């Protein structure tokens, strides 16, 4: 009995009528894309570490490579051949020609990443354009482009790239990008096409048509924004793949021309059995670098994929 008044006292502190809510105070907003992405990263520790590592590596490579004079990576100095790690100022040692491996690694990474980036851009731009055209217009256009792609994808592209690289007489970094770029847009086209097929049947596209918008306007203003998530995910993942393609070609000796260092050429030092077995410091750093970058990118890509697809989200 004695407790009752106390309870009433406590109740008195609570306002009887709910506070009036002004319409201005009510802010209805869904979490922004950036917030969703950040939340997904928080759920995935490995991807967060990968992202930080990638950012650090990219920044270091991009900035440092500007300060490496070309002579450092081209000049041969037989006296310093195969120096061990940490000897006479060479942190990672030197290679067969006596060049500093750390500087080589940075300069190579810059080239490899740049090429992979350019190929990704070429592949995405053409893939998006062709994918939108085939998916949106359908009919005979779709049939023709898709059959061309079917034909293109069964070609052994590594062999063709090697042949092209061998027969083009004066080739530099840009011709290599162009040649690999020829084989980089088919997958994206298919992906974009399938998404456009489902999008262009939606009511909002028809609604836009009844507003008198032209096909080009509908494709770029209505459909393209709705593809942004798969474009981001696809370009991240193909970027990792493209690093692999470039380094493979360079490893085989059909990649970058002589004098332009690449991660692949650094690893190809391992084709010499003695280097492979007893001088691992020559090729291991480049190999580790590639693995870290590609695995890291695919972790980040997975997180992005999850963030853009509500059904797959963890957080």
């Amino acid at each position: 009995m004695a407790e009752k008044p106390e309870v009433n006292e406590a109740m008195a502190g609570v306002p009887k009528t709910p506070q009036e809510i002004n319409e201005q105070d009510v802010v209805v907003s869904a979490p922004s894309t950036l917030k969703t992405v950040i939340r997904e990263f928080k759920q995935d520790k490995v991807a967060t570490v990968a992202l930080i590592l990638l950012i650090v590596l990219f920044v270091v490579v991009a900035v440092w490579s500007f300060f490496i004079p070309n002579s450092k990576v081209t000049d041969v100095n037989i006296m310093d051949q195969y120096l061990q790690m940490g000897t006479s100022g060479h942190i990672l040692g030197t290679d067969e020609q006596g060049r500093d491996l750390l500087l080589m690694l940075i300069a190579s990474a810059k080239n490899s990443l740049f090429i992979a980036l350019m190929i990704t851009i070429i592949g995405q731009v053409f893939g998006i354009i062709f994918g939108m055209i085939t998916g949106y217009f359908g009919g005979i256009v779709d049939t023709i482009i898709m059959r061309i792609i079917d034909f293109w994808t069964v070609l052994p592209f590594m062999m063709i790239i090697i042949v092209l690289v061998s027969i083009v007489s004066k080739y530099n970094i840009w011709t290599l990008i162009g040649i690999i770029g020829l084989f980089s847009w088919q997958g994206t086209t298919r992906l974009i096409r399938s998404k456009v097929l489902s999008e262009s049947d939606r009511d909002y596209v028809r609604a836009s048509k009844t507003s008198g918008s032209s096909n080009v306007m509908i494709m770029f203003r209505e459909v393209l924004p709705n593809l942004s998530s798969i474009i981001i995910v696809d370009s991240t993942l193909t970027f990792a793949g493209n690093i692999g393609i470039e380094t493979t070609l360079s490893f085989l000796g059909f990649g970058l021309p002589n004098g332009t260092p690449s991660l692949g050429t650094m690893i190809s030092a391992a084709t010499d059995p003695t280097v492979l077995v007893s001088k691992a410091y020559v090729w291991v750093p480049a190999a580790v670098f590639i693995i870290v970058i590609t695995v890291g990118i695919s972790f980040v890509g997975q997180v992005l994929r999850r963030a853009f697809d509500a059904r797959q989200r963890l957080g």
Partner: protein
Amino acid sequence: MSEKILLSIKDVSTAFKINGEYYTAIDKVSLDLHQDEVLAIVGESGSGKSTLATSIIGLHNMNATKINGEIDFNGRDILKLNESEFNQLRGNDMGMIFQDPLAALNPLMRIGDQIKETLDVHSDMTENQKNARVHELIDQVGIPNPERVARQFPHELSGGMRQRIIIAIAIANKPELIIADEPTTALDVTIQAQILDLLKDIQQENHAGIILITHDLGVVAEVADTVAVMYAGEIVEQGPVDIIFNEPKHPYTRSLLRAMPTLDTENDDLYVIEGSVPSIKKMDRNSDLFAPRIPWVPVTPGHPEIKEVAPGHLVRGENWKYFKFKDEV
């Protein structure tokens, strides 16, 4: 309702290509729409209402569709226009209101930009004028705080608000013809009434002609001036709204009206029309297509023709003269 004929549909047939063969979805439909008129097209699902609407506004994929006949809009045959000429008309002289307000808005575009799109296509207003017009339109369709709503995304609005936005887009350029394809189907009853009032207000303000497609006879009674009843891709009865509701002739119209539940029916069972609309592949255009659904009525051979039985009142076939419901026979 003025005397000026805005839209005149003459013998329009639409056929779809399915597995390489054309099947008729709409068979020789003729209709007139006057300025200031609300024409309701009613019928079951699959009776060709929406196909007629999309034939008028040109939403069919012409690779797989064949449209014959003539659709005169303000004296121009719109079936003969090319894509860019048609785009000049769409959104400017005719607007369309869709059934599902969420699907008809682009999920990734702000409301203001979506309304602005049709202004971008058809007007040479400056950016400031466009923004002002967008706010005016949002205000006109009865949404408070236009500045804020213009910056929001579709998912942040309620269903009724989204449908108002769709209407705002359709009327942005003050079109003479508005096609409303089941504008209230996806909304709850209280919102339905508001949206219908809004449509009526807009029609009176803009002196537009409205084609209202619906299967809700309550909606028809409330807003329509004239009614066309469609069955299996053809019009079976057509006339002013009070005649259709008070003196329906065609068995289908009468069945539809009888199937509508009212407050004062004493019978607990609803009236059901037997069977269903035949599939597009199984329609025999040489017979009375509604006959299989009233099997107790003797079948007249051949395809019934539509005839005027009173001024402005058209009925298809002759069997309405002796038609009785099953329980009345």
